[in-house]
Structure formats: structure tokens, C-alpha cells
């Protein structure tokens, strides 16, 4: 597979360390998170395989284009609209979490609105870039950040303060029945692959996707999820870990770099994750923007040379995300995230059935074309 494909999956996994996912998982640490992790990784990988196989069969064609060819209008417009909204919300959830984080740990004096607006504005113009440019941006930022992420994870695992007894204690909760919310949160980590609905446009050649690639993805997924869930437990114990609002921030604050210019790892972590959050929002919103563009045919909304459609979309994005930032509290964010993850898990689980349908129709369409 192309390396860009892996970026899409990896960034979704890594960036979610700062989102509500670890909070949700740790909340249920004594009621079935661990078994949910295993189930989640498995189901996540299944979804990844389904999506990849499907999109790989039609290189260079986006999901909306396929729908147009194979389904009726009344079906695909609502579906795409729902997906666009969902992907917008996925971006917003990262955005809110990160805005809260920045305000709390970095620049407590800057008003929430301003911080949120800045984040929105810095990302939103990027969402209108061409798909290949989005991927190039992702690659550069990701490769700058990746060594530092590896360093932090290495540092965490080699730290003497990481108490494996806590981790083992937590692991033994595996005997409990998996918690539904935790499974959904876990599946969400693997949903980076859904971005292919638009990004498939970039992969114009058919690629090899075999057992080796599946194993790599399953391995990456399990390693990330293991780290996401167990490292905070190793540092903070299991009993009252759910007290911590941002478990990973607390974890990164539990490591010290004695000889480095920046002594507290938390700041390296925060700045690094600003980059990752940026990428995550960029990807999600790019997909969302492209879907909206498709649904409302925004390219055509022109006044003289100015494209008002884009302007309206930018305004809508900025205004609605600001509104959400200002109204939600941390607790509400957590609760809605749970609902959101459950919803996405269900929807993207039903998707493969639709894929089977499309696949059959597409073959038919190809055939008729060939006959003509």
C-alpha cells in the first residue's frame, strides 16, 4: 500500500490519544474496557480491511462518484450529508478538546473564542486545498512529529515510574464482558480508513493489499491502543484513573527530561499534539468539505469571480464549531463523544453491506459501458 494510506490510518489513531477516547476507555477500566480493547481492535481491523478492499477495487474513484453511478438520488444525498456532518463533528471534537487543552495548560489568559477561532481559521483554508496537497502537508508534518512521538512513547515505556503491576492488574479485567461504549471508542481509532471516501481520488493505481498489510495494520492498531490505554494506568494506577480529565496530559507530565532544554515533557507533548490535532482536523474537514462541495455543488455558487459557496461553508464551519466550543463543558463533551462514537461504529459497520451492493452494481455498470 502507498505510504499515504498508512498516514491516514496512523494519524487518526495517534491523534485520538488526546481526544475523548482514552477518557472513555479509562472510565470503564473496571467494567470491561480491556476485553473491549481486544474486540475493538479486531472489529476495527475488519472495518479497515473491508474499506480498503472495496476502495482498492475502484482506484481513483471517490465514494460520491460511485454512489452517483449506482444508487438513486433520494438515497445518496441524505447518506452523504450525514457523513459530511459526522466528519465535521469528528473534526470538531478534536478541535474542542485541543482548545480546552491549550487554554488550560498553555495560554490560560487567552479567551476561549479567540483560541478556537484561530485554530479553526488556520485549518479551514487548508481543507480547500487539493487532495494531493492535503496529503503532502500531512506527510511533512507527520514526519516532523513522528520521531518525537516515538521518543515520548519510548521514554514512557522505559521510565522507572511506569509500574507494571498496575498494568497487569488492569489487564486482568479482561475476563469482564466488553463494554459497548468502550468498544465503539476503540473502533473509532481505526476509522481513519473511512477518509478513503474522498482520499481514494489520490490512489489512482490499484495497490497490493494482502495479508502482510493486514497484519501490519492490526499490529499498529493493537500497539497504539495498548499504549493509549495502559501507559496512563502504569503511571497513575487504576483505582482513580477516571478522575483525570486528560489522562495523557497527566501522563506526559509524569516524565522529566533532565538534560534537555525543555524539562517538562508535557510541553513537548502539547506542542506535538497541536500538530497532530491540526492534521486530524485537516483530514476530517477536508473530507467533510469535499462532501459538502459535492452535495451542494458549491463550485457553481459564484458571484463575479468570487466563490460565495466556499465563503458560506467557511463561515458555517467556523460559526458552528465556535458555537459548540462555547456551549459544551468538558463533561458534556465526554458524554456526546460517547454517543458520537457509538453512532459512527454502527454506521460504518453497516457500510460494508452497502459496499457489496455498490460493487455488484459497479460491475454491471462497467459491463454495460464495455458493451456500448
Amino acid at each position, binding site marked *: 500500500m502507498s505510504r499515504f494510506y498508512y498516514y491516514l490510518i496512523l494519524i487518526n489513531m495517534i491523534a485520538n490519544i488526546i481526544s475523548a477516547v482514552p477518557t472513555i476507555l479509562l472510565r470503564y477500566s473496571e467494567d470491561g474496557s480491556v476485553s473491549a480493547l481486544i474486540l475493538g481492535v479486531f472489529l476495527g481491523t475488519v472495518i479497515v480491511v473491508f474499506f480498503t478492499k472495496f476502495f482498492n477495487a475502484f482506484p481513483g474513484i471517490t465514494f460520491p462518484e460511485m454512489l452517483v453511478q449506482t444508487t438513486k438520488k433520494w438515497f445518496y444525498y441524505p447518506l452523504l450529508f450525514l457523513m459530511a456532518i459526522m466528519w465535521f463533528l469528528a473534526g470538531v471534537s478534536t478541535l474542542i478538546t485541543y482548545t480546552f487543552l491549550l487554554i488550560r495548560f498553555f495560554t490560560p489568559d487567552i479567551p476561549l473564542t479567540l483560541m478556537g477561532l484561530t485554530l479553526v481559521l488556520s485549518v479551514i483554508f487548508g481543507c480547500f486545498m487539493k487532495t494531493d496537497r492535503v496529503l503532502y502537508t500531512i506527510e511533512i508534518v507527520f514526519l516532523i512529529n513522528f520521531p518525537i512521538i516515538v521518543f515520548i512513547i519510548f521514554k514512557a515505556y522505559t521510565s522507572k515510574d511506569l509500574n507494571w503491576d498496575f498494568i497487569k492488574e488492569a489487564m486482568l479485567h479482561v475476563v469482564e464482558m466488553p463494554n459497548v461504549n468502550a468498544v465503539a471508542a476503540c473502533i473509532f481509532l481505526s476509522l481513519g480508513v473511512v477518509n478513503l471516501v474522498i482520499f481514494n481520488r489520490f490512489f489512482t493505481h490499484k495497490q497490493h493489499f494482502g495479508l502482510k498489510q493486514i497484519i501490519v495494520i492490526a499490529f499498529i492498531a493493537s500497539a497504539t491502543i495498548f499504549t493509549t490505554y495502559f501507559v496512563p494506568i502504569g503511571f497513575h494506577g487504576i*483505582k482513580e484513573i477516571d478522575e483525570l480529565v486528560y489522562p495523557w496530559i497527566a501522563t506526559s507530565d509524569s516524565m522529566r527530561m533532565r538534560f534537555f532544554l525543555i524539562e517538562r515533557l508535557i510541553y513537548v507533548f502539547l506542542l506535538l499534539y497541536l500538530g497532530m490535532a491540526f492534521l486530524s482536523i485537516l483530514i476530517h474537514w477536508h473530507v467533510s468539505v469535499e462532501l459538502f462541495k459535492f452535495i451542494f455543488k458549491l463550485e457553481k455558487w459564484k458571484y463575479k469571480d468570487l466563490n460565495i459557496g466556499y465563503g458560506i461553508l467557511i463561515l458555517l464551519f467556523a460559526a458552528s464549531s465556535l458555537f459548540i466550543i462555547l456551549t459544551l463543558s468538558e463533561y458534556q463533551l465526554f458524554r456526546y463523544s460517547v454517543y458520537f462514537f457509538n453512532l459512527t461504529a454502527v454506521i460504518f459497520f453497516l457500510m460494508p453491506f452497502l459496499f457489496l451492493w455498490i460493487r455488484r452494481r459497479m460491475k454491471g455498470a462497467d459491463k454495460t459501458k464495455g458493451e456500448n
Partner: protein
Amino acid sequence: MPTKQKGKTRFFVLIALSFLLFLSGCGEFKDIDKMVFVSMIGIDKSDNPKKPYKIILKLYVPTSSFRQNPTPQYSYLIKDGETLAETIAILEAHLDKELDFGHSKLIVLGEKMMEDEKNKEILDFLIRRPDIQMISYVAMGRPNAEEIVKFVPNGETSLQPTLFNYFGNTGAESSFIITTHLFDFRRTMNEYGIDPILPIVEINEPGSHFIIDKSIILAKDRIPYELDAEKTLFVKILADSAKSVFFTVEREGEHFVTRLDNIKPKYRVERDGNQVTIRIKIKLTGIITESRNTLDNRKLPEYNRMLEQEMKEKLNALIDEMKMKGYDPFGFGLRLQSHTLPKDRMTDQEWRTAFKNAKVEVVVKSNLKSTGSIQ
């Protein structure tokens, strides 16, 4: 040309926006010289029962050139209050500059505070504040936090409070100093099967430097239990955090000191019904550094045996003491939990009785490499 036009408008929108942001943003600008940095936080029990907390903040006083002014300067803020947050808010109000806790690396709790069962409350405050480092050291101050915080030993240079160097193996690598970080304190406080332990900081008699070699165990809902220097050393050995230990062996007419450079403790906790067995295995590697009598290289196995016996006795004594009193700074309970399925786990109460009746087996394997440069 459409591209030209679009580029232009976008540019102007950006410019306009950035100016707007700039104008609104300027108010948040605060300079470093308008801030004071807290070096350490001391929390004492005050005499006033209505305002039980006494907070002592040690502040750095920056001077324009540290080269020309090597003696350290600090200022202090002291205030009694009913709650910690409120007290700090009052302190901030009294100051013309902003207090910055981001650089505070040590939290000293007064001895009296320990007996007061306020640890949970203090911890809650310290953790809740985002600007206090989770990685800051926690220690107990004797006779109280104020004296420790205010004490500046001889030879201290500015920028580097001596007290920090004792912890975390930054300066001294003493085997008697327990290092406890704030997050560590919190997790051991919350968790069953492990008890938090803090180092005790004292000032020596003439008042020239710190002494840190004792420690205190703070079990939940029991009175704190103090460990003297030797016991502290053994706790460190068992916790695998001792780097280099000098250990004296005195038996069978021999009297020698060993330097143990490599200590590898391993322990297993097994449970059979309500009977708990703790198996401890320690591997020691080191050399003999001092002896009253002449030593014979050929008799190294003998010395090894003596060291093993001595170590075993001492460790057994310590663990027995801990068992009797019911303190568990090693995390034996946690270790037991780590391989028990959740449904079979003991409650806190069950574990405590089980620990009291636990069987302890200590195995020491020592490997003395040499008798030093002379025999």
C-alpha cells in the same frame, strides 16, 4: 484572471482578520519580568484552628547578572488560610506580579500535617491545578515545612536550590533518599495494596545543611510510620531504586564493608486460600571496600555467605516489622492483585489481615567480585 482575484481577496481577508486578532490579543501579553516564579511550596499546619493551612512559597528573585551575584536570593510569601486555593488567591492578590507555579519542583509538607489526615485534600488541590508539575518532588519537612523551605544552606548558588539536587538522582546519588513524585504520591495514596512513602527532610544541628535519610510511610487511615536511615535503605533496595549501597557485615569475627553496585530484587506474592506467601529473591554484586581484618581472596565464597546471611536477617527483620504494623510501602498487595483475577481479589481489609499473617521467604544471592585493591 480568476486566480489572481481570488488570491487577492483571500490575502486581504487574512490581513484584516489577523489585525483584528492582533488587537484583541494584545491585552493578554504578559512579560516574564512581570512574573515571579515559585521555587517550592511548603504546606504547614497553622496554630489557628479556623485557618488550618499555612502556605509558604519560596520565590526566585531574578537578578540581572547571576555571575556577579552568585549568592542566592529568595523572597517568601507566608499566609494562613482555610483552604489552599483561597490562600493562594489571597497571596496573589497581595503581589504586584503574577505568581507562576510552573517551575516549582518541590512540595514540602510539614510534619504536623501528616498526622492530620489532610493528605487527600492537599493532593486534590495540587493535582487539580494544571500549572503545578505532576513530576514535582514531595517530601516531609521536620520540624515543619516553613523552616525547610526558608533554609538556605551554605554554598548554595542562585538558580539551583540545593534541596532539589538531593532528589531524583540529579546531584547526590545517596541510597538513603527516597524520591517521591507528586503523581507517584497520588497513585500510591489511591491504590490498595501499596502505601505512599515520603522522604523526611531535616536540618543538621549547627544549621549548615540538610539531612535527608529517613522516610515516612503514610498508610491510609492510620498514623504515619517513620523509618530510620537503615530501614529506608532497605526499602530502597527492595524497591529496586538503590544504585550503590554500602553495607556492613559483622559476624563470625569478621567486620567488613561491601559496596553493592548491582542490586536486583525480585519478589513474588502467592496466595493459597487466605495464606499469603511472599518470596523475595535478591541478587547482589559488589566488592569489599573496607575491612578490620586482612581478607583473603580465596575466602570470597565465605564472605559471600556472610553477606547473604546478614542481608537476609536485616530484610526479614524489616519486613516482619512492616507486617506487624501493617504497612506496605513495597506494594506486595499490588503485586498479588496483579496476578489475581478481579473476582478473586481480596478487599483491603482481607489483604491487611492476610499480610499480617504472611509467610516471608527471603533468598539472597550475592556475588562479591573482589576484596578491593588490597587483600
